[in-house]
């Protein structure tokens, strides 16, 4: 960049940063997708907090239960939604809030705080794992007493959260060109998985199926998963498969003199259904036209006579098997 006059410092910075770009880690996109995908659950945690906020006494229990993990996950998914609960900026570390209701059995409560902490370091949860705070109590090991009114609500909400985890699709791709190969897996806890790939094909009892889409379209993959205790839940994702019809790049000149080097004006195609090419002289006269899926012009007109040197114009219309319309126009210089 050139040295700029910088007695006006604002301009120097403004100009320099106008088109400033910087590298982004590929992982960032994955994190964003993960956060978006989980956004639905974010609503539940908000509900949960709203419900327990007024009617329940809450404590922070130092040895975290399974629910802790759930809350952490939901917390990042809730990012971007209005924060109903604001944490003081200082609560950055591991006072993991847990909710315990005396009538609600929380399974797997043996998970240790260390495990839960580890979870906060996974990329998915990296979005935001600091903003949750359940008001007013940071003492460890205090009992929670829920009053009767909120008990059932709480139970339902927790059940709902738990169910989210039985079926949860993870896919290596959510879109791409044919043939699109996707590796699917169930991130949830369900053990018996049934997959419907949306293209008429299904798979049973496969934890990590690999599926190939070879026709363009939008497919809904549905996973139905049953947990060990017999609960069945489903999850779905959309996969968009597009065609990959294309034309090759077109050179800007060719030399039809039979020396074996650039003797033809060539356009190759992939997955093209039909293509029309018209070549015009500078005065608009059509010197050559062609229909087909490949173009190879030798520099002769329709009568087979060599055309004179100069610049010619081409207009190409093509349609791909996927229905994509491609139009190319440009000029080509002919020398012999």
């Amino acid at each position, binding site marked *: *960049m*050139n*040295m*700029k*006059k*910088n*007695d006006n*410092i*604002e301009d*120097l*910075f*403004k100009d*320099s*940063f106008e*088109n*400033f*770009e*910087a*590298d*982004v*880690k590929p992982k*960032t*996109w994955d*994190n*964003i*997708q993960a*956060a*978006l995908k989980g*956004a639905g659950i974010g609503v539940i945690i908000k509900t949960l907090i709203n419900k327990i906020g007024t009617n329940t006494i809450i404590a922070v229990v130092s040895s975290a239960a399974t629910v802790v993990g759930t809350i952490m996950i939901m917390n990042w998914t809730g*990012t*971007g*939604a209005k924060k109903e609960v604001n944490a003081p*900026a*200082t609560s950055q570390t591991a006072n993991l809030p847990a909710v315990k209701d005396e009538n609600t059995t929380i399974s797997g409560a043996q998970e240790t705080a260390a495990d839960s902490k580890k979870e906060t370091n996974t990329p998915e949860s*990296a*979005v*935001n794992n*600091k*903003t949750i705070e359940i008001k007013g109590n940071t003492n460890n090991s205090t009992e929670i007493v829920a009053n009767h009114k909120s008990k059932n609500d709480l139970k339902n909400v927790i059940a709902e959260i738990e169910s989210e985890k039985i079926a949860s699709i993870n896919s290596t791709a*959510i*879109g791409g060109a044919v043939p699109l190969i996707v590796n699917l897996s169930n991130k949830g806890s369900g053990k018996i998985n049934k997959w419907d790939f949306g293209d008429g094909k299904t798979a049973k009892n496969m934890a990590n199926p690999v599926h190939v889409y070879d026709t363009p379209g939008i497919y809904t993959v549905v996973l139905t998963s049953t947990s060990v205790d017999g609960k069945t839940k489903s999850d779905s994702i*959309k*996969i*968009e498969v*597009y065609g990959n019809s*294309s*034309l090759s790049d077109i050179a800007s000149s060719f030399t039809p003199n039979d020396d074996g080097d650039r003797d033809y004006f060539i356009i190759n195609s992939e997955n093209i259904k039909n293509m029309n090419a018209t070549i*015009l002289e*500078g*005065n*608009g006269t059509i010197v050559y036209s062609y229909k087909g899926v490949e173009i190879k012009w030798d520099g002769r007109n329709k009568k087979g006579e060599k055309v004179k040197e100069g610049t010619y*114009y081409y*207009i190409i219309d093509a349609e791909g098997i996927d229905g994509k319309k*491609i*139009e*190319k*126009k*440009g*000029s080509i210089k002919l020398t012999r």
Partner: protein
Amino acid sequence: MQPNIATLHLPYQEQTMTDEQIVQGCIQKNAIAQKHLYEKFARKMMGVCLRYADNHEEAEDVLQNGFVSVFQNIESFKGTGSLEGWIRKIMVNTALTNIRKNKKLKQNIELESVEFMLPSTNHINESFAAKDLLKIIQTLPTGFKTVFNLYAIEGYSHKEIGDMLGISEGTSKSQYSRAKAYLQKLIPIDRE
């Protein structure tokens, strides 16, 4: 008659979507459209986030949260201004939220009296690439940096900045002039 050259040079670009199509797609939560939007703006927005953050990692966090927010609120994009401008606004807001969350801003602005040291290479004589300027900006204390970014680069008024940051207009002005004085000291003045 010469064929119209202006229309002749419009090579078809693979998978190109207009901003309008991207927005429509994103409203429908179409993954391809979301990816398009992200790929179109991620690098540029990273440039914005870096200016507000202390380091690369923090900028990535802001970028990530910013894009999540973009996708979740895409319906509120009215199409009156540019999509890029709208996304940039969200990024800036996300960066400010991040700063507020870390309480860095208040702390820094309150420390008005503290003078900070110039880096030992107190003049940078070479030409300035944006990434050099970025390094300079990143050495500024958070308060200076934020106000400078908002005023000089994003173009907000001191009143707006005051409202955004919860400081007075006067504080914004004084933060700005101090940031500017610092930068002028650091960057040699070239009067032609």
